[in-house]
């Protein structure tokens, strides 16, 4: 591994961590798409900043662009407040307009500006190590490493300082106001941090892939845990993994680094989406199927409970009497047999003592809707686990 390679991976990992932290809160606050809006609408800010500073890594440019990001949020919110359109429409109206202004500004001044919108949208990490920060003749490393490093430092220290406040305002804005923690300040603080991060990162990974780095690790982690601290830690882990893994995929395919980082993130998310133990697609589908069977089981048992006459309890009769379309009656009968709730003697089904007891409890629960009735059944049945 050469030194530029190492530096690229370091920058990528730092960008990923810096994005993952605000990303967690954006996902939890259902504001994930704000990052998309910000990442597009900072373009006019970047262009204006570039005209003034002529340097893509200058702090002034970052500041101007980040202000544009916060303005976007304010614009979206004020449009939403008029009640003329819904929030998502407001987002969808604001950022393309600002982005268009940015594109036109670049196009009108294309001749004397070294800034093209491919670079802004897509970024190029491979060139990052060649733009070096030189302090009094000393080469101290790539500029973007320093830039993202400082942004990460600020983000992390803000996270540690205001963790409690962020947590309460994210999950319960009302309680947070009552405790004297203004949700509005937390909201705009988070928006500012997100803006600064997006602006700092667009140079490395581009405006659209910043969105991936913010949302995807957080969403992946959210499928695996319900604990905020663990979610942040997992997101950071996924971010770093995607950064390093993405670099080597890009190396292998000779393709864009940011593209491969996102692809790695995408595969990671897809894997977790399918196979996450509690909240993954397969687990959910299995649970839903079980619940469907168990509802049928209860219907079946209640039916048996209601009828003492033999012809109503004949196996062949059940199919027509209880109108089961989705779940085959065999599955249900097997499940009941396995749990020793019924006995079958010559095609006639009867409840056992256990089955009778279960049916009574289920009936009581249905009538009273009190949770303690089913406390003991939770271990055996998905249905009662909520």
């Amino acid at each position, binding site marked *: 591994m050469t030194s530029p390679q190492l530096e690229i991976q370091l920058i990528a990992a730092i960008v990923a961590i810096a994005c993952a932290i605000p990303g967690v809160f954006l996902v939890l606050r259902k504001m994930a798409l704000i990052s998309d809006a910000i990442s597009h609408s900072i373009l006019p800010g970047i262009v204006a900043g570039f005209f003034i500073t002529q340097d893509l890594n200058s702090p002034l440019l970052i500041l101007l662009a980040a202000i544009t990001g916060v303005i976007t949020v304010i614009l979206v919110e004020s449009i939403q407040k008029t009640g003329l359109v819904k929030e998502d429409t407001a987002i969808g109206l604001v950022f393309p*307009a600002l982005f268009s*202004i940015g594109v*036109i500004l670049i196009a009108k001044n294309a001749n004397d500006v070294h800034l093209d919108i491919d670079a802004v949208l897509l970024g190029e990490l491979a060139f990052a190590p060649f733009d070096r920060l030189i302090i009094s003749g000393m080469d101290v490393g790539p500029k973007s490493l320093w830039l993202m490093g400082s942004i990460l430092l600020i983000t992390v220290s803000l996270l540690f300082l205001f963790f409690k406040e962020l947590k309460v305002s994210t999950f319960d804005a009302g309680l947070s106001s009552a405790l004297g923690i203004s949700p509005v300040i937390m909201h705009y603080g988070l928006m500012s941090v997100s803006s600064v991060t997006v602006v700092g990162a667009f140079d490395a990974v581009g405006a659209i892939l910043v969105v991936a780095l913010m949302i995807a690790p957080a969403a992946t982690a*959210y499928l695996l845990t319900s604990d905020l601290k663990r979610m942040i830690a997992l997101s950071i882990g996924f971010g770093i993994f995607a950064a390093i893994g993405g670099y080597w995929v890009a190396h292998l395919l000779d393709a864009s680094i940011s593209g491969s980082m*996102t692809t790695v993130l995408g595969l990671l998310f897809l894997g977790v989406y399918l196979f996450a133990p509690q909240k993954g697609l397969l687990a959910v589908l299995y649970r839903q199927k079980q619940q469907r069977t168990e509802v049928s089981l209860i219907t079946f048992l209640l039916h048996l409970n209601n009828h003492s006459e033999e012809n109503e309890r004949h196996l062949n009769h059940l199919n027509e009497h209880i109108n089961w379309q989705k779940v085959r009656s065999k599955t249900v009968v097997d499940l009941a047999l396995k749990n020793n709730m019924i006995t079958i003697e010559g095609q006639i089904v009867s409840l056992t003592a256990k089955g009778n007891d279960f049916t009574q409890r289920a009936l009581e629960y249905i009538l009273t809707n009190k949770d303690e009735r089913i406390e003991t059944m939770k271990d055996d049945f998905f249905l009662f686990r909520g």
Partner: protein
Amino acid sequence: MSLTEYFELLFTDYTLRTITLGTAVLGAICGMLGSFAVLRKQSLLGDAISHAALPGIALAFLITGAKDTNILLLGALVSGLIGTFWIKGMVSKTHLKSDTALGLVLSLFFGFGMLLLTFIQKQPNANQAGLDKYLFGQAATLVEDDVRLMLIVTGISLCILLLFWKEFKILLFDADYTKTLGFNTKFIDVLITFFIVLAIVLGLQTVGVVLMSAMLLAPAAAARQWTNRLSMMILLAAIFGILSGVLGTAISASQNNLSTGPVIVLVATVFVVFSFIFSPGRGLFFREIRFRNNRKDLQLKKTLQFMYGIAKTHDNISHPHAIRILNNFQGFTKKSLQQMEDKEWITINGQQWALTSKGFNEAMNLYNKTHD
């Protein structure tokens, strides 16, 4: 080239005519189908789908090696549809919210598309130039065939719209009721989503991935302000879309270095801003005027109520009183008294006022009326 020159050239110049017609048709179909997207609260679906179409374009190119627009658009359509249904699946099967699902599909698909695009660029058979026109859109690359395709798709979606008008409308406003009526809501839902995705994919070549969402939203959001009728809204949205397309093309053609896509979006945004402010029913300007009028009216009625309280104690309701005794009640001015006299609620004689019988009745029934 000035704007007037442009409109003269419009009828003689082939390229200009094609582009203008193309953007106009695109505006129409986007406005039409965008109305549904806006009303179904799927505004940002357009954004997600246009980004999600990118890997489809790249894969179609990788597989066929051809740059035929129709094949590339077919690829875009397939990957756009996969994106849409994944979003729906994520929202219904996991606890991820729709904003997260949209953002995920948007960025992950786009990132994968970028990977493929850069991979293609490094390939030896490098006739891939032009694939990136789908990123930002180049209306200038529109040819007659593209416009014909757009016209056909617009025609088909118009037919479908008319054929399933009742179903679309009822699903839009009350999905649960639709289900109880026995309609196949899943089918209607898929149908309308399919056409929205189709419109998005058609627009990619003209306005590009990033700005497509505005193309879909802006005409519909503007039209929404002027009417509460679905049919009217769709018609207006289509007109706004056409106007943005034509005006945007005209402005960008009349200047150097102005790409068409962003200008169209800005023109559409101007329509939106104008509608937000000046639409008579919902617009902010008239809303403010109504608000002020109501406040003034309330002031007058409060004064009248106070006068009524005084006049009621006298046998003769028109018994004159000194204006001075109103001083306890702060909410009157010379002007407001004058207005009350204009309404013939009171008569003013020097420093005296007297309630008329009309004013007395008005005040008496102030709280009885259910509506005015």
